[in-house]
């Protein structure tokens, strides 16, 4: 059951990202060129709806399906970590036109070259882990 549940949510996510073209290299370039509202509409409407529904979950003290408390974990405050890490990520996002979710969806669409992006992203993740103690956080 658990197996099917997360597979199913991922499947819905992959379909939405494909059909709204949010996985498209062209849409990402268009976004960074401020040439279309489309991507801003997707992210913006998700954030607005996300803020409203998250506030409702908190205000109504809603529980998980299992009846446990829903916890939102505040991230530790830091500027350099999020800013430097964010800039590095953004450079890669524009360069490849892909971010982690879409990588897998594009692979499923048959763009085999994306395997190279995934493999190097794993190397990048590993190297971050290895250098972690030497980086400003």
């Amino acid at each position: 059951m658990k197996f099917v549940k997360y597979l199913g949510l991922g499947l819905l996510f992959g379909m939405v990202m494909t059909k709204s073209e949010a996985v498209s290299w062209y849409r990402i370039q268009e976004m960074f060129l401020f040439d279309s509202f489309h991507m801003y509409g997707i992210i913006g409407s998700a954030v607005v709806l996300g803020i409203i529904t998250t506030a409702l979950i908190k205000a109504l003290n809603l529980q998980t399906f299992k009846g446990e408390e829903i916890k939102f974990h505040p991230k530790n405050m830091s500027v350099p970590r999020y800013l430097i890490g964010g800039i590095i990520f953004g450079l890669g996002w524009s360069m490849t036109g892909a971010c982690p979710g879409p990588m897998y969806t594009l692979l499923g669409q048959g763009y085999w070259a994306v395997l190279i992006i995934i493999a190097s992203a794993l190397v990048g993740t590993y190297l971050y882990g290895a250098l972690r103690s030497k980086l400003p956080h």
Partner: protein
Amino acid sequence: MFLFAQEVTDMLSQPWPWYVSGALIVLVMQLLVFNGKSFGVSASMRAACSAMGAGKSVSFFDFDWKGSQGWNMLFITGAAIGGFISMQFLSGDEAMDIGSKTMEYVKSIGFSEPEVADNGKTMLLPKEYNDPNFVFSAKGLFILIFGGFLIGFGARYAGGCTSGHAISGLSQLQIPSLIAVIGFFIGGLTMTYFILPLLFGA
């Protein structure tokens, strides 16, 4: 009945509007929350490193990835299947309609304009991504390998990617996520306006 099914398929085969996409992404995110999980795709890459044994050499990867992130591995598998299904059964048959400025830009850095694949389906990536002559050229390998590296390194450094920070974190009004998203755009705009034209501009 058959006609109705055909109509639904035709409708789903059009590009979906931004507000449908935004609403369904939030649905996915909150269904994860109601399952006690947190929406964030890049965390699955840390788990993948751990699954491949990275925990033996680097303590950052020494954690119970199955227990904490096993669900995310299923999620990304689903995301790949979702891509496959939409492409096979719900794909449009026209080239993507992109802005004129983007069209010019894309050509200026040496990529093709949006096209329809040989099988008549809409292609979401430039045809270069399916062309071994491009993929294994110096330019192609540089973009895919170095770009992928930046994505993996940056996402973990920032503690999240578009899903974890821009959607999930901002929905929770987290300041760290806002800083990360500002970083995403500083990096993205620098790449789009300066680095790519400098490296590949005609």
